[in-house]
């Protein structure tokens, strides 16, 4: 061999050369990239539109909305002088001939654009649904503001949507009058799309329906994407009117009708019942030092929205009775694109999505195959005079829920909620190690101690009781507990103990998530998105990066099996999580299933559980409110969007006195005094997340966000919270809220049994109605 004859010096030189070259390459590659991982969180594309290269040639010059950045404010003649009141019946208002009336309202209809005007016969107040003289704007927005119904449609797999309204795309309209309203058949000849709009005048207001059997789509090229139903009902220009829009964001929030000076560029636009992870791309999140620096906004838990005009004392609550699973609620504060304040529901029929074709690069746009399966029915229920405020809206919604048996009155006994975290796992040398945080032993000891301290009514949820703990043991496939938790006291003993001591002990079952690190996905079907990729919910934990979702049928199968297991193990109390506040579209083989399918599967299995067990649901969507003994993790505030002017406790205004409601954990609140006052105001029951061990043991687990939970810290706080809140609860009883007023930093809540609660959020002493309240305090007054 030749190498053998090389001289040492030659080899040495060669090596030296390689070393130099190698280190040069290394240095270059090192200096090019910084060793720190500051990814500036990149823009998560906000509204659904994505700027992707359009595959097909566009359809002329129709400008997609939402892309329009220029704001059309000021200069144009803004003042529309439309009357707020008309005190008698008219032949015609603004080209809207009289159509029909009942005891409370008169309906006027302009057949040209399906615009309606509603007149309140008692006060004469009017509600308009389209703009009379639109401000100068581009054609498509002008048509938008003047149409009762606006459709968006897709052209092949073009990702931008085009607009067809009562003017654009030349619709043919046929209006048929009915006993209580009218039916408008709309046909777009060019697009070969048609549908019927049914409008009815009811005692409470109007309903608008679009039954899906009337929808006809004959073209392969043009398909319906979405519909706006009376988007401009109750609109106003800038600060011309007084009042507010109500959005169901978290606990509820109000956007005042005012001139925002162009401060806001984008509207509030969210899916009812949360984002649809099956089709919408989630935020492409860049991490901040390996952490996600943002909290997610609150979901819409109930399909309602509202508009109140305080100047004419007229307003409405829009309840989406059907189609809510594919609906969006959009609220435009003035200045967001147009100088109008408007709020509407939007119904999504079809979307396009990105289909990746390889691991890293290359995607193609695909259009959803089937139309989402739903009828549209929106009931606009009107409030007037002294009820024209958010309290009036809440009362309406309460009536609606009770009348339609969507919520029944429950046992609203006051209880403090003491949740335990059982086991977690952390990385070990060879295999993952269990971290027992609260054994049944110590759980028992803590509960006994609390009872000794006078906390008699306890509801407790045990999380992470299953084998491998809260994150390692997903899905839950057996009713036996993790070994590390059972020292002297077994799960069975523990449940028996709680039954004997009147503690409602629930086992937490996350029925949605799947841990593919621990379980093989061969035996369980996982939820795949429309693009046939398995969905992964990223959590960036210390042990597990993310979780998959179970296919709804897998969820059902597991839950059915566990139903028997739980019964066998004499477990009566179960809390379900995950499936109670997630809904998604998914692909099932070659079929595309929409959210209604998911919902119907979940609803069925939850109903089963409701019959077999005492069931709790975790922050449930409104369609499940009747299935749970209590609402858990009720949001105490809104997501704090820049355009919201106030938070209102809409859920509490609606449900207090009907359903027991538990707040989010007190542990993680930075302002605990203020949080306590909110519990008092909203009548939420206190919740604590407790572990026996110090939470620093969780540092290397996926629960590293639990930083405060040790019992020792809360052993005095829980009894004092319990005592104070119980006392209030006893005074209020099952009375419902009839009035809620805010005077700067003081809130006054009036109940149907004449009890009044004053809450002072300011640091200073304040006086109200002759009572003096210390800083950060409350007062309960009974009459």
């Amino acid at each position, binding site marked *: 061999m030749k*190498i*053998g004859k*090389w001289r040492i010096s030659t*080899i*040495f030189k060669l*090596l030296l050369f390689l070393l130099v070259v190698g280190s040069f390459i290394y*240095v*270059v590659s090192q200096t090019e990239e910084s060793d*720190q991982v*500051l990814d*500036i*969180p990149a*823009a*998560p*594309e*906000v509204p659904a539109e994505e700027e992707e290269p359009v595959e097909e040639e566009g359809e002329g010059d129709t400008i997609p909305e939402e892309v329009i950045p220029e704001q059309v404010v000021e200069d144009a003649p803004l003042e529309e002088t439309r009357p707020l009141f008309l005190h008698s019946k008219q032949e015609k208002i603004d080209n809207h001939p009289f159509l029909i009336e009942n005891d409370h309202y008169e309906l006027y209809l302009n057949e040209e654009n399906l615009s309606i005007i509603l007149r309140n016969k008692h006060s004469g107040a009017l509600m308009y649904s389209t703009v009379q003289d639109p401000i100068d704007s581009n054609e498509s927005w002008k048509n938008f503001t003047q149409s009762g119904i606006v459709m968006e449609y897709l052209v092949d797999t073009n990702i931008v949507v085009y607009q067809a309204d009562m003017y654009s795309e030349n619709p043919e309209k046929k209006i048929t009058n009915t006993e209580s309203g009218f039916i408008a058949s709309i046909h777009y000849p060019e697009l070969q799309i048609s549908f019927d709009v049914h409008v009815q005048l009811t005692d409470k207001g109007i309903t608008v329906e679009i039954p899906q059997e009337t929808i006809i789509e004959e073209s392969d090229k043009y398909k319906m994407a979405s519909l706006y139903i009376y988007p401009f009902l109750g609109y106003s220009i800038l600060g011309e009117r007084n009042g507010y829009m109500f959005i169901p964001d*978290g606990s509820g929030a109000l956007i005042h009708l005012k001139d925002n*000076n162009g*401060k*806001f560029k*984008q509207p509030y636009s969210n899916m009812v019942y949360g984002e649809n992870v099956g089709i919408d791309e989630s935020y492409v999140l860049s991490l*901040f*030092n*390996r*952490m*996600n*620096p*943002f*909290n997610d*906004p*609150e979901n819409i838990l109930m399909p309602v929205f509202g508009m109140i005009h305080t100047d004419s004392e007229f307003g409405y609550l829009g309840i989406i009775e059907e189609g809510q699973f594919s609906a969006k609620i959009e609220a435009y504060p003035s200045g967001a694109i147009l100088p109008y304040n408007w709020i509407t529901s939007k119904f999504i029929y079809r979307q396009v999505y990105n*289909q*990746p*074709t*390889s*691991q890293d690069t290359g995607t193609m746009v695909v259009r959803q195959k089937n139309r989402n399966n739903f009828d549209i029915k929106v009931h606009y229920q009107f409030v007037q005079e002294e009820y024209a405020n958010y309290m009036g809206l809440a009362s309406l919604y309460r009536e609606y829920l009770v009348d339609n048996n969507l919520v029944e009155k429950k046992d609203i006994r006051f209880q403090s909620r003491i949740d335990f975290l059982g086991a977690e796992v952390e990385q070990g*040398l060879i295999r993952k190690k269990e971290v027992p945080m609260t054994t049944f032993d110590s759980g028992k000891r803590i509960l006994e101690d609390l009872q000794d301290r006078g906390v008699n009514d306890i509801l407790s949820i045990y999380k992470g009781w299953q084998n491998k703990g809260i994150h390692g043991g997903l899905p839950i496939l057996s009713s036996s507990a993790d070994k590390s938790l059972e020292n002297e006291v077994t799960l069975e003993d523990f449940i028996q103990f709680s039954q004997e001591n009147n503690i409602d002990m629930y086992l937490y079952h996350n029925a949605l998530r799947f841990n593919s690190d621990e379980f093989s996905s061969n035996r369980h079907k996982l939820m795949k998105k429309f693009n046939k990729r398995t969905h992964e919910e990223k959590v960036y934990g*210390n042990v597990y990066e993310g979780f998959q979702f179970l296919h709804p049928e897998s969820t059902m199968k597991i839950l059915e099996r566990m139903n028997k297991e739980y019964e066998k193990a004499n477990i009566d109390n179960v809390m379900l999580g995950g499936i109670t506040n997630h809904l998604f579209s998914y692909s099932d083989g070659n079929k595309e299933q929409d959210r209604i399918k998911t919902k119907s599967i979940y609803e069925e299995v939850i109903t089963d559980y409701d019959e077999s067990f005492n069931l709790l649901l975790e922050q449930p969507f409104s369609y499940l409110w009747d299935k749970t003994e209590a609402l858990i993790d009720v*949001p*105490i*505030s809104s*997501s*704090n969007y*820049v355009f919201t002017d*106030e938070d209102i406790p809409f859920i509490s205004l609606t449900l207090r006195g009907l359903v027991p409601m538990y707040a989010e954990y007190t542990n993680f*609140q*930075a*302002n605990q*005094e203020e*949080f306590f006052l*909110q519990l008092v105001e909203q009548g939420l029951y206190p919740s604590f997340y407790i572990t026996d061990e*110090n939470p*620093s043991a969780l*540092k*290397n687990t996926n629960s*590293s966000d639990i*930083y*405060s939970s*040790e019992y020792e810290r809360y052993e005095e706080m829980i009894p004092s919270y319990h005592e104070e809140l119980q006392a209030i609860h006893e005074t209020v009883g099952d009375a419902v809220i009839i009035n809620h007023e805010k005077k*700067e930093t003081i809130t006054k809540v009036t109940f149907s049994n004449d009890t009044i609660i004053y809450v002072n959020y300011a640091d200073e002493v304040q006086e109200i109605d002759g009572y003096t309240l210390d800083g950060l305090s409350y007062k309960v007054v009974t009459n």
Partner: protein
Amino acid sequence: MKKMNRILVILLVMSAMWLINTIPVQAETAYKTFTEDGYGQYVETQTAYTVNETIIQFDDEVFLQAQDMKVDESGLIYVADTGNKRILVGNKNGSLERIIGDGILQKPTGIFISHDEKLYVADEVAAKIFIFSKNGELLQEFERPESILFGEKATFVPEKVAVDKRDNIYIISRGNSNGIIQINANSGEFIGYFAPNQTVVSPLTAFRRAIFTEEQLSRMIDMVPATAKNINIDEKGLVYAVSQGENAEGIRKLNVAGRNILDTKVFDEFPISVEIGSLENIFVASENGFIYEYTSEGNLLFVFGGRDDGRQRVGLFSKISAISVDESGNIYALDPEKNQIQIFEPTEFASLVHESLNLYQNGDYEASKEPWKEVIRLNGLFDFAQLGLGEAYFKEENYQEAMDAFRQAKYKDGYSDAFWEVRNVWMRENVIYLFYIVIIWLIAAQVWKRLNKKFQWKERFRQRFNESERWNWLRKIVFIKNLIRHPIDSYYSIQHEKKASVPAALFWLIIIFAIYVADKYYSGFIFRIVQDGEYNFANDVISFFAIFLLVITCHYLICTINDGEGKFKHVLTGFIYAFAPYVFFKPLLIILSNFLTYNEAYLLSLANFIIYCWVGILLFLMIKEINGYSIRGTFKIIFLTLFMILITVLLLFIVYVLIVQMIQFVVSVFNEGVYRIENR
């Protein structure tokens, strides 16, 4: 006229009411708040600051691309309204106090309120520093210094300005990398450049310097150090400067001599503004919308905020250009794109942390203990509180508690000191027992020696062991000890006398691996490199055995083509047995490392050095003896082996990349085909 006034008053009151009226909404914030653990990783904590007000205008005056903002002692907000060429002064309620410099200023980018209540304005376009009285009177202005020391080509584009108590003006001039310009306001004299950023000489730059021509060098950008982005001065006259860029020190706290006295690695690359709070806490804002709060010593307390990106939630920013802190600890953050100021208020939790820090910094350790403990109870992961608690205990000479707290805080220096003290006490109490043990040991040794002489236990045992066939395998394993005293003979025995075997060698390989793992994960806390809870066992297995295989095969192959005499099994056993010193002494060091402090760290490194050298020598001897090379030949073989390893790694890498590419290509083609067909 009177009527007009009244209307005006009513309007003013109304607009003020409008702003006050908004109740501070307590909501889940859009941003998470983090603190740093002892390893410098972020951990989540309670919200430290919530927005309680947003100012978009002072009465009717809106601002445009405002670049700087300061809040004075009385709570007035000064905004450098850069886009509108003026300074706006307003208060927290959004009402306008006055407008300064309208018509004089051209592009005010930096402002500063001096100790004698004068307003200094840096104007980029006018290239001047203007000094106004608080009422808006122009008092003085400064232009480019004439001094030769300033530099002929040096630019004077004042971007930011600060003034100390002796009326020295510190000016950051855009593009002037000589440092911060210092001018005396009273004499107008140029004093000199202050604290320039250092150029970081990376190996790459050094390499370029060596080979590039003058011309090429002058064109290189990163030869010029980054200019500071912003400055501020605290009550004591210390200057704080923030700089951007990968290699620049993000935050510097400069003493009079211009030396940085802060040792903080800033994670953010875009710090833009710095402010000093009442506890000498350093607040830094980054252009990305994050706000950092450091203690005066540079420990990160909180970081929060973030870029809006269309989330549209309160507390996020499009960009931050300036932050300021008022007397009661509220943070004001100016967003030049949204043209608004968000005012953050400390929460109960942040106030508690500040209270503890205050007590602690004032030296009231006893009193600071309780609040620190409360912080820890509220957040078990708040390592800085553990550190504070540890220091408090240490100062009280409660070393055991201090040690525990420092351990929690992962603060190695403190732990080492506390442990030294604890160990000292233990030694003092137990040294007598050690003495006893040594004596007993000596006596026992003597007794054993005598008895053994008489009964010959040891010799008989050895004889039996050496002769019995049954213990053959064990003899081969135990043979490793001979490497320590007679390496050359032992290699001969391995090669020619079958004193060792491959199974025995593999046994030792596993032991070596176990020691390697134990060293990595179970060394004493202060000497451990890996963090608590960090385990990469699978990685360790793979990398250890892969490297072993690679080295041994390459070496063997090179030997075979170079007339080496060793067979593979001899090379293998010889190679592994060469680690004898590691096997015998490393475990002792691992145990010892649990009882040593930084004071004795040199012992440990010396011992380690000896072990590794020894292993190296044994390996060298192994190659030489087993293959029968000369010393020169052995060196040659070693270099050749290294060369081959390099080539092999390269080759494997190339093959890997090719395969991955190929798989991806096939998958893409297949998928695209499937979807095209499905969607026809």
